[in-house]
């Protein structure tokens, strides 16, 4: 399970962009913002025969397929 989660981890679903930062901004700038491209976007048609989590892990994670697992951790944005 751990290797699947590492494989389908947040990193390759994360996109980073850099909004304009003005020297006149009133608050300390957040230079980097992120958003997520979930796997249902990159693989919009599920191919057959994908590797599966164990039933127990699937119940916990919400999907049977590591390829469609989308973890979410709070990131500063």
């Amino acid at each position, binding site marked *: 399970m751990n290797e699947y989660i590492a494989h389908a981890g947040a990193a390759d679903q994360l996109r980073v962009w850099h*909004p304009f930062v*003005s020297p*006149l*901004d*009133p*608050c*300390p*700038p*957040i230079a980097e913002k992120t958003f997520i491209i979930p796997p249902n976007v990159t693989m919009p048609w599920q191919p057959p025969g994908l590797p599966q989590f164990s039933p127990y892990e699937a119940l916990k994670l919400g999907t049977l397929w590591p390829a469609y697992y989308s973890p979410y951790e*709070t990131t*500063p*944005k």
Partner: protein
Amino acid sequence: MWIYEKKLQYPVKVSKCDPYMAKLLLEQYGGADGELAAALRYLNQRYTIPDKVIGLLTDIGTEEFAHLEMIATMVYKLTKDATPEQLRAAGLGDHYANHDKALFYQNASGVPWTATYIQAKGDPIADLYEDIAAEEKARATYQWLIDMTDDVDLQDGLKFLREREVIHSLRFREAVEILKESHGVKKVF
């Protein structure tokens, strides 16, 4: 159609980190007497008003969109660098839950904009009197917003917008005088 100039009508500068002020400014963004309501009200009333005052509604309605951009810029500058925790502390936790940091057409209390904020009665006097009232209410809202911040740079932008409401009201009052057709006519009572 419109020609767009990629700059603000008046420079917006915000110098105090005060995300709570963004919440208050939303009153002029998506509130009942806000700039969105004003622009849509005037631009819609144009079609059924006497020819002499159509141009006035077009010009003022267009300027209201320029004001909407200024308010949006103020709100964005005040929220773009806030963490979710800071937004929550500023009373914007419910906004974050629904919209992240996206702007939305709602008032300071989070009530979404609705077309019931505006009227189109078709009667020229009724419509122009509503427009005059809307300008005075917007002027008052700007006053209360100026009262709610000590950022002189933000106040500067708000004071410009407040003055425009004063002038818009004047022009609508002049439009009423034009429709009364007593303007410039010598009358002996």
